[in-house]
């Protein structure tokens, strides 16, 4: 029990640090693409500390101030449900309490909380963003879960542990090679999942003046910030586990997640932003058709 508690705390803290670090890296790289000097690598830590130290003076209602906690819980929860290093009992955390399906559905938890908080703020733009975000989520979840279900059917299991172990013994056993189309689809959905171009309609700085966090500031924002960072890391680990052979060691975990994290960074700046319905329709059809190819292979 104590071991579990320690493991949970360490994992969460580690993920937070790693997530913030990755965010810093991305800011640096983006700045250099833009030709700017840009922030420091540690800028995210400084921001978080600054935000956390500032008092939030106002709130709009119970749901409003519970939303960041929902967000944090959602992030940590997903992280804890995914075994971080396959075969290492230290960091399996809570993954014994549910399989891939649970992870898929638990990913909604934070989103729902956020959406409710935004709704409770009474700010129409916040809700516009929620509406877009939910729509886009409904679209990419379709193709993502399709990809996941193809894996599950193909490998005959919903257990992440088993999926990872099925990929051992050579790089060609990775699902990225066994199910290339499903992986491609999942990688496409990875973009809207992280709200990068061309799918960043939720934040949409040009259309929605301030976005969902409009009303959030200071300590509230620091919670959401951490939640997002942890959730991001959790998703990276999940992807690595599902498609890229899992992580047998710390080094492979760091390398794989880092590379995966870099991928949108090099894709997104090339594209303009979709309109919401374009995004939704694209996500309905393009990745899902890709999955369909693998699905046919599995069934036949």
């Amino acid at each position: 029990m104590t071991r579990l508690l320690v493991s949970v705390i360490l994992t969460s803290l580690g993920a937070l640090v790693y997530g913030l670090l990755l965010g810093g890296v991305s800011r640096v790289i983006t700045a250099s693409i833009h030709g700017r000097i840009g922030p420091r690598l540690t800028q995210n830590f400084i921001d978080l500390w600054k935000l956390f130290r500032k008092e939030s003076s106002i709130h709009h209602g119970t749901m409003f101030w519970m939303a960041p906690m929902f967000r944090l819980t959602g992030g940590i929860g997903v992280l804890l449900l995914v075994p971080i290093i396959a075969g290492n009992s230290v960091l399996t955390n809570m993954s014994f309490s549910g399989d891939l399906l649970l992870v898929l559905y638990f990913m909604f938890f934070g989103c729902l909380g956020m959406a409710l908080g935004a709704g409770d703020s009474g700010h129409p733009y916040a809700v516009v963003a929620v509406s877009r975000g939910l729509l886009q989520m409904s679209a990419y979840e379709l193709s993502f879960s399709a990809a996941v279900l193809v894996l599950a059917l193909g490998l005959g299991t919903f257990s992440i542990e088993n999926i990872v172990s099925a990929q051992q013994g050579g790089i060609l056993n990775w699902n990225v090679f066994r199910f290339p189309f499903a992986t491609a689809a999942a990688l496409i959905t990875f973009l809207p999942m992280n709200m990068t171009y061309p799918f960043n309609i939720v934040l949409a700085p040009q259309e929605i003046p301030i976005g969902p966090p409009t009303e959030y500031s200071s300590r509230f924002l620091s919670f959401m910030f951490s939640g997002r960072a942890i959730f991001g890391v959790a998703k990276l680990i999940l992807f690595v586990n599902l498609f890229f052979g899992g992580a047998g060691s710390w080094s492979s975990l760091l390398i794989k997640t880092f590379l995966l994290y870099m991928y949108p960074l090099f894709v997104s700046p090339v594209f303009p932003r979709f309109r919401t319905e374009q995004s939704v329709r694209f996500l309905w059809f393009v990745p899902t058709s890709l999955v369909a190819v693998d699905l046919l292979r599995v069934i036949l």
Partner: protein
Amino acid sequence: MVTALAVFLPLLGAFLTAWLTHRNERLSLLITRLFLLAGLAAILVIAARLGAVTDGGLENTMILRTGVMTPPLSIDLKVTGWSALAAVVVYVGALLGVGRFSGRIPGTQPLLLTLVTTSLGLMFATDFFNSFVFIEIGSIITIGLTAAGRCRRRWEVALKTAMISGLVTILYLLAVVIVYRTTGELRLTAISTMTGFPAILVSGLLLTVIMTEIKAFPLSGWGLDFYQGVDKNFAAVYSSTWSLAVLLWSARMLTVLPLPDPGVLARIGAGGLVLGQLAGLRQRDPGRMMGYSTSAYASILLILAGTVHGADYLSLTLLFFTFASLSKTTVFLMADPEEEDDPWKKVSGYVLLLPLLCITGIPPFPVFWAKIRMLTVLADISPLLMGAVILGLFFESVYIYRLWSSRTGPWQKKRKYFDAAFMGAALLAAGTVWTAAGAEQGLSLSGELFRAGFVRDLFLAIFAGGTLLSLPGAFRGGPGEKSPAVWMLVSGVALTLLPLSGNGLTFYVLWEISAFAAVIGVSKGARPSEGTFWFAVFAGAAGYLLLASLVLSDGAVSSPGIPMLLVAAAALLKMGQGGAHLWNVRAYSTAPSTMAAFLSGTSSKAAVFLLVFSASAAAILPLGTSLAWIGALTALGMAAMASLESDYKKVLAYASVSQLGYVIMGIGLTSVLGWTAAIYHTFNHFLFKSILFLGAAGVIARTGTSDYDSLGGLVKRMPLTFTFTLISVIAFAGVPPLSGFGSKWLLYNALVEQGMLPLALVAMFASVVAFLYAFRLLYAVFLGQLAPRHYEVKEAPLAVLAPQGVFTAVLMALSFRPTLLLDRLVPAVASIAGLGGEIPVIEGTALSTSLGYWDAWSVGMMVMGVFGFAFVFYWISGRRPIHVGQLDIGFAGELPPSPEEVHYAGDFFRPFRRALAFLPEIHASKVFGGIVKTADLAGDVFRSLFTGDARTYLLHSLIILTVMILWMKGGTP
């Protein structure tokens, strides 16, 4: 002697009152009543002597000899137990109607009394020519009283009746000539000995006469005009006396007709029933509807005569026609003849309920017992014929429902005016009790139709608990609503008994009682007309499908093959699947909110119960994949509809149908996992849909609106309602750690186990779309900006809040400890024969299959732990913020306009609508509207036969006569 008195006393009274009339009206009326009462006493004595009410008593006979010697020289009147009972009804009808009719129009008593003697005479007649004399008297009195009645169109009606009776006279006498010349005598029984062409000719002539007289389609034109135009109080008397007598006489005549093949009658009747009732669908005039109903009963008589024999025939005809006549009399007595266009305008639907239910033959009303017996016989002869009859009866119930639902009057204040009608209703009620007691041996609540066990008990708990918990809120209707509590209770009790029913008949009876009580409950809503109509139509259709299945599978609710298909269709209709959601959406949104909660949360589970229990899994297997696809597509389509809808109750209705789609999917898989998922989700759905609808009831009761645009921000005024709603929304969205996820987990396991990935994808998509409407619901109603007019709104009434609390408690318990249910459910489902697939393993709090695992308890603990940590961390890490005004928002430096304008709720998912634009718009309302329109058009084709020109009606009779003669002649070379 008693027989003679029973028959002729009214006639003596007629002679007496003919003299008294215009001298002393009150004395004359008194004498009329006295003679009728004396006659009634006499016929009761006869009925008792014949033992008419006991088994076999219907065939006991008592002969009244007249003249000299015996038939064929003289004439006998034969009283059987059968006709004695009908004669009782004749007397009762006359007694009920005499005050209302003769009291208003002096001088009619002698004719009325004579009509009674004549009706009895016709029912007892054994002689061919003697019958003719009685028929003529009846026609003359009908014409006379029609012309004397208080109604604007009396001349037209009287003239048409006169012309019809003129034709009948001619055709009948021609038959008399032929019968006498070929058989040498005039007893009715002699007719059956005829052979060759005279037999065909006489059959044709008499069949035409009978069909015209009893108003069987297509010779019903004059009858329709008659019931529409005639003085409704005369129609009251007419229905129970002359109309009944003619029906019963025809019932005897049809058995002696020397037809080459009596099956012809059944075909004519069934065809007439379908087409005639189809024509009736478009009717708006209540009087004319009664005419169409009469025509339906006429067709039923033809069907019975062609298929049923012996004692069954007697009891069936008696049950059908006496109760239908008495019901019609009661209905007509309630009419106010002074209201020319709609005589029932000022009548409340309540008072019409009993007689109309009797007419449509809803269980447990007497006609129902006859109906089911008839269908059983028909099912053995030809399922097609049975189908036609069921279709016709369904059409009838539709327009009868319309007649009932358009009554908006208050309770009648004039008691005196209503005495007779209430007496009629009381008699009907007594008859209902009596026949139900007689049919009791067919009913049982203790048999083994449904395997006793955990699953049955679970449904029992759902039905009982759902009813009890929906009930408190129902006592006070919402704004503009009346209280549906009584009907909810009736419906709920019937539902609760459903799992205990010992045989198919009991099951069906309870099912129908529950359905019609629910229909009435729904009609208590604020804008009930559309919603109730569609609910009634779909519930009716489901009921008739179930009935067909019941009959085809010999008393079990269903058996493999066609009956199973029918049951599945009934269940799908009841659950609004596959496009049938039209009724759910319309009924739930217009019904009282608590009634909607009951229907969606509790009542819809009856259909699941039906599917799970009615047949073995093997029977469902052939339908499984189709069922699963229907469920999946419904789940997806309805979720999308729910996201785009902006009426609170309609959203819940769509959501309800969508969620039940998962249940159907699970059942369609016919595996242990699938059924476990289905039943588990059923229970879940019961919990969260009850909470949601009860919450909606509270919101609507307090704000008076269910429109998203006018709601918003209510979390501040109704925090408890919001909490309950939030929990149930999280549950049905399937977000862990609440219970909805369990259903999803089981379902996906089942789907992947069966390799049905496309289905799993559709289900997955549906559940994601569910997220859209789930959030929109919470946001538009409870979050966002509170409209100023709702500043003073109070928390929902305790009567709906407390049940929500109970439901929520159960839901939470189930969320964290699903094994409380699954521990028992899984073995119970695993023991159902015919279910394939693996059985999930339960270890402690964890559930696992070969695919995956899930431990709700530890997930719950984790979430609580992390959330609690975040919460506490936040709490101790700084000062608490203060709550600011609702318009204190960062608005890019501008002043936000009014709360209503800032609340963004309408067309919330506009991009979604745009993204869906490539799909063709298929609206269920258009599809069903199209079906209705087609039926109407087809009905109009047949309706156009009835041009209103009496000569056309005569021509119809002659054409039918010609066709029948040529047909039968061709049939027997």
